[in-house]
């Protein structure tokens, strides 16, 4: 850089001989990144062991992950075809089926016959037989519920009676996939392949021919699982074929199965709302429809919106109060405004304390004090952010330009007027901008303190996830949260850039 002419080789060697440390010390420098790299790798290996990541990932049930993810945007309809030893069949649906009380979807076609049959003494093993299965155990709650729809109490003696039974059932998943059950023979076709198996109405399933790729059977005679990818799957047991047909979308998003508007097209609903006769004599159809939407049993729109509003309110009120409380305190904490060192240090340490006792601890504490709800969240955000905003505000105050203050002071203004006209105009945009920033970021963090009981949508999210069957509700709430966060993000960004734009830097 300094030498403009290139030194000759001799000169360079002479320089090298005179200042060996200039050239040699570079090896140490070169070793440093290597050492840091080795340290990082060693740390990662340690953490791999510390958290036993390899073991956990290996034992995780990744099959379920795909199903859970699919549940976010799709739902299953689950007809169970029960097969008696004599080949008679009956079809039942899960309780709270998205199709309503008497489902008869087009993709399931049944042939019914009225026959007189002898019902044998019910075998004990049939009743005991668990319907839930190992690899899809997350469905156990609903699958178990489906059992309640089984035919009435069994007679204890051989008895003959006349009843309508299903003799043939055809389930069409999509163009390429269908399952046909008739005469204790299950025929499944998927992706151009046809696979047959016989069931005995008891415990055994026998495949006829080799298993195709999409069918699995752990041991001979045991149940066979047919997986058709995203269209669904089916499970063939000796006495039952469980169909799981997956449909894209959110089922019954507006009206649940108990609503009089259930199962109608948009046009029908609209005409019913506007011109139809009153379904409920006490109120108009429009009001009834709105009420049905709000209290939709499955999606709980009103509750979700209320909880979301609580989260927004927590962030708003908490941040507003925090900035109001931090405002006077920061003047005491700033060393150029309040010359007392003791006061500065005391307030600053107070801010540090508020910040270090985490929002989480405050949230737990106030949940105990106020009970679960947004008050706890507001208080937690208020206490934490009084600390953080106070620290930021006092730093902003310490960085102000002194000239304005001196100017106001020199014309003999009172101390309050000095702050009002000499200090405030400089820092107010910064204060407001930081408060806005925290408002926005608290909207995000209010979700998570909600999950520990401090009110808002966090707890509702957590409860929806805990059952492992309401992932579509989780998706709905996440979508709402993302929307709210993005809206507030842009509002706060727009306000901040206007505020900071006016400030001359």
């Amino acid at each position, binding site marked *: 850089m300094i030498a403009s002419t290139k030194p000759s080789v001799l000169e360079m060697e002479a320089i090298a001989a005179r200042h060996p440390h200039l050239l040699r010390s570079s090896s140490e420098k070169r070793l440093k990144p290597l050492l840091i790299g080795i340290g*990082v790798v060693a*740390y*990662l290996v340690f*953490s791999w062991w*510390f*958290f036993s990541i390899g073991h*956990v*990932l290996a034992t*995780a*049930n*990744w099959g*379920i*992950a795909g199903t*859970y993810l699919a549940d976010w945007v799709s739902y299953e309809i689950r007809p169970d075809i029960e097969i008696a030893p004599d080949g008679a069949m009956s079809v039942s649906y899960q309780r709270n089926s998205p199709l309503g009380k008497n489902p008869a979807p087009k993709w399931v076609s049944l042939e019914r016959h009225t026959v007189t049959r002898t019902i044998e003494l019910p075998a004990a093993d049939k009743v005991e037989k668990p319907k839930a299965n190992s690899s899809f155990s997350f469905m156990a709650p609903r699958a178990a519920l489906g059992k309640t729809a089984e035919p009435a109490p069994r007679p204890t003696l051989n008895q003959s009676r006349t009843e309508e039974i299903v003799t043939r059932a055809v389930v069409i998943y999509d163009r390429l996939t269908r399952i046909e059950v008739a005469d204790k023979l299950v025929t499944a076709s998927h992706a151009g392949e046809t696979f047959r198996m016989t069931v005995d109405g008891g415990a055994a399933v026998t495949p006829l021919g080799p298993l195709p790729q999409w069918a699995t059977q752990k041991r001979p005679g045991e149940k066979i699982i047919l997986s058709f990818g995203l269209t669904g799957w089916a499970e063939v047991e000796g006495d039952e074929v469980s169909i799981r047909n997956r449909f894209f979308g959110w089922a019954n998003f507006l009206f649940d199965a108990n609503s009089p508007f259930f199962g109608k097209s948009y046009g029908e609903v609209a005409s019913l709302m506007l011109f139809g006769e009153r379904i409920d004599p006490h109120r108009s159809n429009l009001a009834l429809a709105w009420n049905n939407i709000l209290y939709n049993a499955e999606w709980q729109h009103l509750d979700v919106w*209320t909880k979301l509003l*609580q989260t927004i*309110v*927590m962030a*708003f*009120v908490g941040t*507003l109060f925090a900035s109001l409380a931090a405002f006077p305190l920061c003047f005491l904490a700033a060393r150029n405004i309040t010359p007392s060192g003791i006061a500065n240090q005391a307030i600053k340490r107070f801010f*540090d304390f508020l910040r*270090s*006792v*985490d*929002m*989480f*601890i405050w949230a*737990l*504490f106030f949940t*105990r*004090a*106020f*009970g*679960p*709800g*947004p*008050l*706890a969240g*507001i208080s937690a955000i208020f206490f934490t952010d009084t600390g*953080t905003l106070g620290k930021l505000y006092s730093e902003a105050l310490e960085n102000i330009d002194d000239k304005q203050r001196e100017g106001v002071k020199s014309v003999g203004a009172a101390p309050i007027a000095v702050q009002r006209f000499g200090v405030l105009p400089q820092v107010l945009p910064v204060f407001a901008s930081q408060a806005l*920033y925290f408002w926005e*970021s608290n909207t*995000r*963090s209010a*979700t*998570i303190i909600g*999950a*520990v009981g401090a*009110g808002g949508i966090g707890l509702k*999210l*957590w409860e929806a*996830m805990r059952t492992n069957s309401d992932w579509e509700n*989780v998706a709905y709430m*996440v979508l709402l*949260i*993302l929307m709210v*966060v*993005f809206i507030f*993000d842009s509002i706060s960004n727009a306000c901040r850039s206007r505020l900071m734009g006016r400030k001359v830097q």
Partner: protein
Amino acid sequence: MATSMLSKPLSESGALVERHWQELSARRRMYTALGVALLAFTLFASLWFANASNAGKFFDRLPHLFDFFGDLMPRELMEIPRALFDLPSPYNDGSFKYNYPDGRLYLTDGIYVPEYFHKMLETVNIAIFSTAIGAFFGFILCFVAARNLMPNPWIRGAARRMMEVLRAFPEVVIAGFFLAILSLGPIPAIAAVSIHTIGALGKMFFEVVENADMKPEEGLRAVGGNWLERVWFGIVPQVLPNFTSYFLLRLEINVRASTIIGAVGGGGIGELLRLSIGQNHPAKTLAIVMLLLTTIIAVDQFSAWLRRRLAGDQAFAFDR
């Protein structure tokens, strides 16, 4: 206001100017008043709503606010260090409340790590590990999202949108999802915290990259360096100190975040704190709070010290 005090009457144009000024300031005052009124209205509506939808009402509960401190008093002060270091308690009646040595983690026959220290270490380690993962992916993404390095607006936009979604996606959901697959343990917490960190750090990083000096990059371009070489030798050396300090800043935030995630099932000290508050174990609660407070302060101080050493006194934006 100063003009009206002048003894001499104003000229015609002067009076016009003054009238305009008065009008403007009156309008401004009106806007301010309207804004404040709106804010106050929203505030009171929000407060009413919060109070109405809360389990306990504010004014009913306020007198009992400090009951909790009474509940939090251990039977004797020495109980706190006993709980902290897993020493046997004289009040031990076999119940979980006083059975401190139960949680000891024995390294050898004689040496043990007290439960809370072990869990605190786990929480801090979750934070460090996930900050490292987040920084790694944020580092990769940030160069693609920076305007000065990625002229293609589609790729840049995609990278930025992706970071925004990662940042705004509720951590509870990520933790809950992995909890459902992996069952209880620290890995759901790691996943949740690191996914959020990718978004948050990526944003900080690309802002740093956009403010970088482009001259070294230009020099490398002039001698025919490809994109990777230009980034690696032209940009990375100048942004690395800033990246490191953002990394440390994020680490402070993540220690807190991993504590909270722990409370909702991610393991670590957070869960123990939630349980001990919920089950009313005063000595344990106080021990954990003190340990947590000390650790957070220590991490903050350490990170501040390291940041000052690495990057000098620079102002940093706060973000969570």
